[in-house]
């Protein structure tokens, strides 16, 4: 029972990270391998706010998230748009964006190493027990769950009930057709990419309240976000949420029942199963 709750709590936070990547890959068609680094950067922001400024890390949300939005906007306009223009087809764009964001991830890690050093960092915030069904859980994890649920809900509503959301979904399905329908595709792609980065950084802040991180751990989160996005079906919000919960549960189960050092192996196992049996994910379209 405990495993179930912890798994769901963890899964919800993973959902935030995956949501960010979903927007970036599903809409802007950028396979952003630096996604995990954006998360760690957000976490560093919260850490700094808490330890240096002695203020609740949730305050970091107020300025880290907009900063992440701006930073990702810039990254897309300056670094990624040239690739979009240069690519002759979708396959080439994917390869180019993978290489470029891979390089970026190293640049980010390098910057963070220089700025914060290579040590692990963590802080204790809101770690008081919060009782659910008779067992205590960290309040910080519960808050993260609520925040993740709220943000996912907002995103889902935003994508499905607003005009901008519909434009974004149209670009995700078919950028060429969306352009013909009068949608400003480059602007929507930039917006989606920036929004994705902001959501990811927000997820990082949430995670930092109860996880220990270091400058180079980004790649593990990138992997998990990628696995979730593929498991759920690229571009699909419900799919990403369900897949995140599955991953959170699977990891917690493996960590509690087998060994905490095998969480990535557990994620990979899920990934292999998806690739072998349903590569388009839970809600994705069959790949052509």
């Amino acid at each position, binding site marked *: 029972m405990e495993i179930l709750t912890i798994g769901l709590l963890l899964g919800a936070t993973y959902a935030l990270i995956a949501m960010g990547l979903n927007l970036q890959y599903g809409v802007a068609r950028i*396979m952003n*391998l630096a996604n995990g680094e954006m998360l760690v950067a957000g976490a560093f922001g919260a850490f700094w706010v808490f330890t240096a400024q002695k203020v609740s890390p949730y305050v970091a949300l107020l300025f880290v998230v907009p900063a992440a939005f701006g930073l990702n906007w810039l990254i897309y306009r300056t*670094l990624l748009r*040239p690739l979009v223009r240069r690519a002759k087809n979708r*396959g080439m764009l*994917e*390869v*180019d964006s*993978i*290489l*470029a964001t*891979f*390089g*970026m*991830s*190293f*640049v*980010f*890690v*390098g*910057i963070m*190493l*220089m700025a914060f050093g290579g040590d692990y960092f963590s802080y204790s915030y809101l770690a008081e027990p919060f009782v659910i069904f008779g067992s205590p859980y960290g309040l910080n994890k519960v808050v993260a769950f609520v925040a993740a649920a709220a943000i996912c809900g907002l995103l889902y509503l935003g994508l499905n009930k607003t005009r901008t959301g519909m434009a974004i979904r149209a670009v995700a399905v078919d950028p060429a057709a969306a352009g013909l329908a009068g949608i400003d595709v480059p602007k929507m792609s930039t917006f989606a990419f920036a929004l994705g980065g902001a959501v990811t950084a927000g997820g990082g802040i949430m995670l930092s309240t109860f996880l220990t991180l270091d400058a180079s751990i980004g*790649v*593990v989160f*990138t*992997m998990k976000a*990628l*696995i979730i996005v*593929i498991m759920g079906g690229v571009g699909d919000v419900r799919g990403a949420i369900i897949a995140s919960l599955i991953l959170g549960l699977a990891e917690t189960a493996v960590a509690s029942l087998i*060994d905490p*050092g*095998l969480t*990535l*192996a557990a994620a*990979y196992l899920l*990934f*292999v199963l998806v*690739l*072998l049996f349903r*590569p388009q994910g839970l809600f994705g379209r069959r*790949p052509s």
Partner: protein
Amino acid sequence: MTRREIRNTILAVIAFAILPWLPFLKDSGYLMSLAIPIAMYTVLATSWALFSGPTHYISLATAAFYGVGAYVVAGGIGVVPYAVLVLLAGVAGAILAALVGLATLRLSGVYFVIFTLGLAEMVRQLVTWVQNNFTGSRGLYVLTDITERIIYWELLVLAALVYLIGWIVNRSRLGFAMRIIGNDELVAAHVGIHSARAKVILFVISGIFAAVVGAVMAPRFTYIEPSLAFSPELSFQVVIMALLGGVHRLWGPLVGVIPFTLLWEVIAASFPTQTVLLLGVAFLLIVYFIPQGVVGLIESLMRRAGIGRGSGDG
């Protein structure tokens, strides 16, 4: 054979006749410390390009195979003869590559890249887990009589092998199939090519080489730890060097390996804390400004100047 191929073969034969004598020169210690990494990266980058060049599937898993090879040696040294361990490392590399390939190569390149991104990290975690729970200690000692010279010669043999196999593949049906797949996978299917199978075979070849290199280099470590054997920087550097040189010619990666290795020695010494950052910047520069690699750039400039050859690889 074309005139260009004959020239290249003669150059290669001369090179392989001269290079083994390097350890007998004066100051050979310093030369070895450069020659061994250069030889190692040449094998790794060339075998990487054998697969990732024609298919455009970017493998980030070199460290996974390298580490597996190193651990096969570290685990069996003293118990099993070294030569057998090297062979076993190759087999292990082949099995790992086959598993990864069969799972991912039927699908588009994105799945493959993602899978390889975390593969080294996952294998590292698995090895750490095994070591923590079953063998007690974190690292393994590799104590052998194998000198740097022997390692150098082994690497030269591997380099000769990788060029030989690359040359054979390029002239074979498999090489032709790979060129077609790299151009248009739909057409490849419509002319009867089994794309997944061809990709897996090539990936296995490159995996074997990476694992054997790991096995050959293991004695140089003396003490192997998971984070040493499965270093993500290795995967990254191999990709950079191959892309820098150019992956469309068999000798392209070599053109990237030599300057990069030499430059890296200088940079790692002068800016030890910024190596990661600089790797990233170097990578971005290559991706944005010389995507075809130095060799590709030179060849396209020559084409524009009218000094030309027809299309097709050499």
